[in-house]
């Protein structure tokens, strides 16, 4: 019974003309007496047809066009409303013309003419129509299932046209991506998935996936980073399924699901850890910076202590000077007295006394140099003889010159023009430069001092140029750049303060003079050039 039911074709015939309906009925009944699967019900009006259709759920509506009261499409719609999948076959009256438009009416499977109505044709048409109708209803059902699946799916689904534009978007996709359907439709896959993905997270998985649009090969990745509104990134599992496998640049469906919260959290943690790492690095940098500052501070402190030391040296020098110079004064006066009183009587005593006086002067020279060095004095500018100052300076360093067995060569012309300078300070300059040269020539050598007048520049503004050359160790080129900075010394702890050249520079600046220090080209050693 169930089997016969399934094979039966239920047909409702709309035919206001009794003659015609009887004819068709008879026609079908004869043919279907035992074997015919066709069950026919007849309605006279479209209204009747619609209500019957509601009751019977027919497979086929066989409708004589002449039986419609009003426009065919309206009536048809009412009849199909209860069972939209029903197949429709239209019957034309004798002499009625075909209308192409009728074929495109909903449900219409076929059009037959009553003139002549062929039994076999009608039977076949009804069979085909019912089969088609069933297939269609199945399709519709499948479509609906798909549609339900599509919208109920927890996975995001987006279908893309061959040019990669989003055609359909399901609610899950909207939810996962945090965008409305309207925002997504018509956009490309690249735009939707990766637009705001941070470049360093886009990764190879993204490129891999996108290839599907080119070659039509299905691809699936377990973890890829998508853009999501409001969040930096979103980790998803994603499959790109071409509609026609292997079709190049065909339509593609993307199915993706957000990875579990745990994974999202893990990724966030990773980010956080990286951030932490960066912070730590920053901290390390800051720390090393701090260390450097500390070091600088310590150096400054050392320098201050040095300066402080120097000040106390100054105070000490003043005190010592007082205590030493007074006895020296007595010795000098005493020696002179002896010279007057004894010289005539004792052969050779004058020479001894001269030696004593010389020693007194030398001792005084050292003390005086120390005082000058440690005293901040105002400039006392006057015209003077540079040669004299150089001689005085040489005298002050004579003991070192002798101790280091250094030969002194002076090349100073007699007619050197006078220089406008602070005599004591310039003497100080030469003493410092000589001491440096001498300390560089511990094992002996030659100290050359030259002076000459020369034209300073093209306007031939005349100037006096002095050069001090030694055959000592020379200066490390790296040191040369900062040689005038205070506290730069290679003799720290061995009598060096690193102040010598800074004082020299200061004094030359005070005189609007110029100083240049370089290594000699002709031999090992240093050359200092001064211009006044």
């Amino acid at each position, binding site marked *: 019974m169930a089997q016969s039911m399934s094979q039966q074709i239920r047909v409702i015939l709309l035919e206001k003309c009794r003659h015609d309906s009887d004819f068709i009925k008879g026609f079908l009944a004869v043919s279907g007496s035992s074997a015919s699967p066709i069950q026919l019900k007849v309605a006279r009006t479209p209204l009747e047809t619609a209500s019957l259709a509601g009751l019977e759920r027919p497979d086929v509506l066989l409708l004589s066009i002449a039986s419609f009261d009003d426009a065919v499409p309206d009536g048809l719609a009412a009849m199909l409303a209860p069972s939209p999948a029903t197949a429709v076959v239209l019957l034309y009256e004798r002499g009625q013309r075909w209308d192409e438009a009728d074929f495109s009416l909903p449900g219409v499977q076929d059009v037959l003419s009553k003139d002549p109505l062929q039994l076999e044709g009608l039977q076949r048409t009804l069979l085909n129509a019912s089969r088609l109708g069933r297939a269609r209803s199945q399709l519709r059902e499948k479509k609906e299932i798909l549609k339900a699946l599509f919208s109920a799916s927890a996975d995001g689904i987006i279908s893309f046209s061959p040019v990669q534009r989003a055609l359909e978007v399901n609610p899950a996709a909207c939810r996962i991506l945090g965008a409305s359907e309207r925002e997504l439709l018509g956009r490309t896959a690249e735009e939707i998935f990766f637009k705001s993905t941070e470049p360093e997270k886009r990764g190879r998985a993204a490129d891999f996936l996108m290839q599907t649009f080119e070659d039509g090969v299905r691809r699936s990745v377990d973890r890829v980073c998508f853009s999501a509104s409001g969040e930096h990134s979103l980790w998803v599992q994603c499959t790109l399924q071409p509609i026609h496998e292997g079709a190049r640049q065909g339509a593609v469906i993307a199915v993706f699901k957000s990875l579990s919260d745990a994974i999202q959290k893990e990724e966030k943690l990773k980010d956080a850890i990286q951030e932490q790492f960066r912070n730590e690095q920053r901290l390390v940098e800051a720390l090393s910076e701090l260390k450097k500052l500390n070091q600088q501070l310590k150096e400054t402190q050392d320098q201050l202590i040095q300066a402080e030391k120097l000040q106390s040296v100054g105070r000490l020098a*003043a005190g010592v000077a*007082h205590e030493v*110079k*007074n006895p*020296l004064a*007595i010795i*000098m*006066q*005493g020696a002179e007295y002896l010279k*007057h009183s004894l010289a005539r009587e004792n052969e050779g005593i004058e020479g001894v006394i001269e030696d004593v006086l010389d020693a007194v002067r030398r001792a005084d020279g050292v003390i005086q140099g120390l005082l000058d060095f440690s005293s901040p004095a105002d400039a006392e500018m006057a015209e003077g003889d540079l040669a004299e100052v150089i001689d005085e300076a040489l005298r002050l360093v004579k003991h070192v010159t002798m101790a280091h067995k250094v030969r002194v060569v002076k090349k100073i012309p007699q007619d050197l023009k006078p220089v406008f300078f602070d005599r004591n300070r310039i003497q100080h300059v030469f003493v410092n430069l000589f001491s440096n040269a001498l300390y560089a020539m511990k094992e002996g050598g030659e100290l050359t001092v030259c002076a000459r007048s020369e034209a300073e520049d093209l306007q031939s503004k005349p100037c006096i140029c002095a050069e001090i050359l030694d055959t000592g160790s020379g200066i490390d080129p790296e040191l040369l750049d900062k040689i005038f900075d205070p506290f730069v010394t290679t003799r720290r702890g061995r009598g060096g303060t690193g102040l010598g050249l800074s004082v020299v520079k200061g004094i030359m600046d005070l005189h609007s003079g110029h100083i240049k220090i370089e290594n000699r080209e002709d031999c090992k050693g240093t050359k200092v050039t001064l211009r006044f």
Partner: protein
Amino acid sequence: MWDDIERKKILIVDDEEKFLAVTKKNLEKSGPYEVRIESRVSEVIPAVKEFKPDLIILDVMMPDRRGSEIAYEIRNTDKIKQIPILFLTATAMKGQKELFGGLVDGLPFTIKPTVSKPVSTADLIKAIESQLPKPTDE
């Protein structure tokens, strides 16, 4: 050796008695000078008043009373205030104002000229001669 009339009177004030003694001998032997010496600070003004020197040589760094203060007193005492003073120093640092240049302890005069110890007799005489009033043409 030197004619009494030509001799200039010089008072040397210093706390180093040995220096005074030998310097007096050297000066008197080397030039037309009559030298009187004084090492006691309190005796300086009376000595100046009594001796009426042509020139005073004053050590600036004497104990208990600084030479500069004595100089101030001299400069503010009638009849002796015009006497030239030559300052002796054992710590001559050019321009060191606290001690020598400009106002000393608020004293409104300059301590100049100065002669730095130790000094040879020849240099001392040079300095003395430069300070003594020049004989006017009459």
